[in-house]
């Protein structure tokens, strides 16, 4: 049974995980780009 409590928690969880996954995705891609363009970068 969906309660207001569980629905709210679910929506907040979705929002937070979307933000986190977006941040991690962008950092991952940035690192890929740097490693590709400058393989010996320190």
């Amino acid at each position, binding site marked *: 049974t969906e309660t207001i409590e569980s629905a709210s928690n679910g929506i907040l969880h*979705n*929002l937070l*995980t*979307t933000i986190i*996954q*977006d941040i991690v*995705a*962008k950092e*991952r*891609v*940035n690192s*890929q*780009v740097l*490693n*590709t363009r400058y393989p010996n970068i320190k």
Partner: protein
Amino acid sequence: CKHIEQVFQNEKSKDGVLKSCNAARFILRHTPIKEKLLHTMKCSQCQEINAGSTFMCLQCDFVGCWNGSHFITHMKRFGHVFGINSSNGLLFCFKCMDYIGHLETINYSMLNKYWDDISTKTTIPSQERRDGLFGLVNMGSTCFMSSILQALIHNPYIVNYSMSQTHFVNCSIKNSSLCMSCALDAMIIEFYGQSKLQPISSSSSSSSSSSSSSPSAFISLLTCSLKINENFAGYSQQDAHEFLQYFLNQLHQDYKRDSSHNEQENNCPCVAHSIFQGELKSSIVCPECQNDSKTIIDPFMDLSLDIKDKTDLYQCLDSFHKKEKLHDFNYHCSRCNTSLDPIKQFTINKLPPMLVLQLKRFEHFVNGTNVKLNEFVQYPLYLNMRDYCDRNTNQETPDIIYELTGILSHIGSINEGHYVVVLKINDGRWFKFNDSMISVIKEDEALKQQAYLLFYTVRQIN
């Protein structure tokens, strides 16, 4: 990613992938957020919105979420391996379980497609144009304009704005003789973008110098300026500070003309306001009960500082900021019902990224006489504005450090004077711009100018 490489081995499938990627990204860029949430960010399987990242399948109309692993299920069922993240447009391989974000073939496929066309219609700027050093011949009395223009053209915020074509894209006029923002863009293109070599002549002294004929864009700007305001036509000497105010106002007006935003001036996102506008708090406080109901906050584009009997900039700022009792003021406090002289103080409520300080060198008297104050006022390389900011009693105000990046000085008398500007360019070197003559100068010489306008750029907040 060996999976995308496999696809790219076949020209037809490669083309198909690139087309789908570009189409998906175009849709994502041009779709309002509400529509995106209801379609591209809603999982086709569980119908949840934003259940983690959502991915648009490259091969069908399926959208799968991360949190429910529904794209993975789709992949296992149909063998569709690639998905585009609906939030950021990045391509994901569900076999490698990783993003393929670094492939230039995908990221710059549009550029690659049109490269031949681009390479014939554009030119690479010559190396000499790197610092945008271009003298401006004095066309009568244009030094007040050229010194301000040089300061703006070497302002990285303005250069960035211009080079990203932010104004050009939205301009309804697109003519540098009729639009001041277009004229500024044209000057920046000419200063930084010319591919022809400019003749450089070196003098016998240690400093290098360059002189060149005026760029045609400067002529367009003068034409435009004459059409808008005859006073700034350039054949009679005007005040450089007034010209700065006029010019920034023009940039704002150009933005307003072409923008659909109905912003109030306090929140205007135009280039002039976003770089130069701060907020000044004028507080009028009752000495009895501290009532500050008559306190107001006003925007400012520059601060004008008294320099009489002052020897350095901090003294000028201290004087500007100090608390003063207001005499002969019809003040009545509604809270405590007293009529004591209130305490007035200016504090900075919000600092701009570029702080312009005018040292009030010109005094204009009621009897018509004008006097110029020639006293030297010392100014620092780094200016800490912390003490002049409105202090939040709950938090400690941090050091807010500004770096000196430009000094506009006035040489000569009030009626027969000349403006010169000294600017710090890209790699930290100081250059003096004197109409058509540009020369390298040492830092200690830069600090010895008879400053009229000081340009400070925000550097660090501790």
